[in-house]
């Protein structure tokens, strides 16, 4: 089993939901995360605050975030265990934000 990072972009953090819809989305997240934990493949995960800074250039210029439009904003990440990238991508299909325009980027954590 290898480690894979799922990076959550856009989705529930960018959509204008009613409170009831937000709660429904939240419940789906609870269920999904719980499912990953129940399978014993959930390793770690954290949310990221929407504001930040960007540092760029040979003579570094620091600018205030957000770095992108909210639909491109990274909301958080988790690390899960899977046999290969295909299995990890299959797992990512369960992400509750996909139906509402979210994206999951799946990357293998490189071991060397």
């Amino acid at each position: 089993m290898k480690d894979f990072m799922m990076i959550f972009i856009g989705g529930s953090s960018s959509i204008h939901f009613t409170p009831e819809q937000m709660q429904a989305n939240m419940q789906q997240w609870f269920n999904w995360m719980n499912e990953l934990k129940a399978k014993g493949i959930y390793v770690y995960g954290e949310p990221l605050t929407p504001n930040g800074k960007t540092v760029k250039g040979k003579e570094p210029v620091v600018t205030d975030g957000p770095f992108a439009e909210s639909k491109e904003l990274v909301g958080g990440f988790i690390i899960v265990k899977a046999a290969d990238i295909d299995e990890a991508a299959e797992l990512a299909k369960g992400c509750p934000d996909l139906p509402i325009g979210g994206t999951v980027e799946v990357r293998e954590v490189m071991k060397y």
Partner: protein
Amino acid sequence: MQTAPAQQLVDHLFRHEAGKMIAVLTRIFGMHNLEMAEDVVQEAFLKAMQVWKFDVPANPAAWLMQTARNKAIDIVRRQQYHRQYSNEVAQQLLTETENTIGQFFSDNEINDSQLRMIFACCHPQLKLEDRIALTLKTVSGFGVPEIARALVTNDAVIQKRLYRAKQFIKEADVRFEIPAGLELMQRLDTVYTILYLLFNEGYNSLKADELIRKDLCGEAIRLAYILSQNKSGKQPATFALLALMCLQASRFDSRLDEDNSIILLQNQDRSKWNHDLVQMGYYYLNQSAQGGDMSVYHIESAIAAEHCLATSFENTNWRRMLQLYDMLLELKATPVVTLNRAVILAQSGNPQQAINSIQALDKIDTLLQSQYIYSAVLGDIYLTIQDYEQAKKYLLLSRQLTTSEAEKKLLNEKLKTITIAIT
């Protein structure tokens, strides 16, 4: 491997907390800054959406309130210390801001703010439909699409109503307060009207889907409960209204069968009535008896209680019912009350008198041509005295007018019994 079940939030937690947060924040920012309050609530929810996925707080409601509180302090501080004073003064002002704002977040003050918000949304100068939309949005935490679904209209119509209501609140400088004395009673009356409408919309409108209708009824009961928990709101009429809604709601699940057809009161399985709600109804009915005044809600809840007390439809105390309807008619001389009284008259063995009382209604022809319920009741009474010709005439008219599939089905069944009876 045995694992714990997934985290479960309390039903409608976000909705209910939205109402609380908006009320408190509006009290802090002022009624003219209602939108600012809504923005803060939205921000708090977005933050929750991000963070809770990874770690649900032990007390989600308190977490939301705390987040709203911190944001409120931030905003007030930003405005206030725009220009810096000396460090010492700034420090003191900061502490004061925190204390001043913090005090609005106690349970008592939250309840108080919610009541103020209810009063503001039910302002008598607002159109009735605007009041309902604004109350659902601001007090109940419903979103525009949900309000539209509940009221069987579209989003644009609701947007317009909300816009109009908010404009009025800004322009008329509506105060965010609980009135006292006679004014309190008058304002409470406008609130009762809205809660009663909300409840009836949920209970009677067969056009909206069952789920959202249940939400509406639940919400009306919840708001009445909030009223009853406030020192200004806990009036006898508040308890009477609460009793009425609990008793009615106890029959919610018995009114329709699996095919979504209406089950009439006389055919309902009384063991299916929600016993807990009936008991709550009796409890509030008792509470409402304190104090001398008799409101419309007192009588209507007494009528609802009579239904619950009867072991079967046949065993209903019709004499007592008729007395109650006579009292109700004195306070509320509307065609609908007359119509309901006629049903009781017919049940107590006076069908002809019942028919006469309906036919004697002012503008009965217009009523018959515009609202299906009048012809439905008339047709029914004619059916009981076996005047099939008249019965058929009115039931057909009723079927033509109703838009509800369940009603149509019921009317068709009655028409079928006529066909069988005359052949």
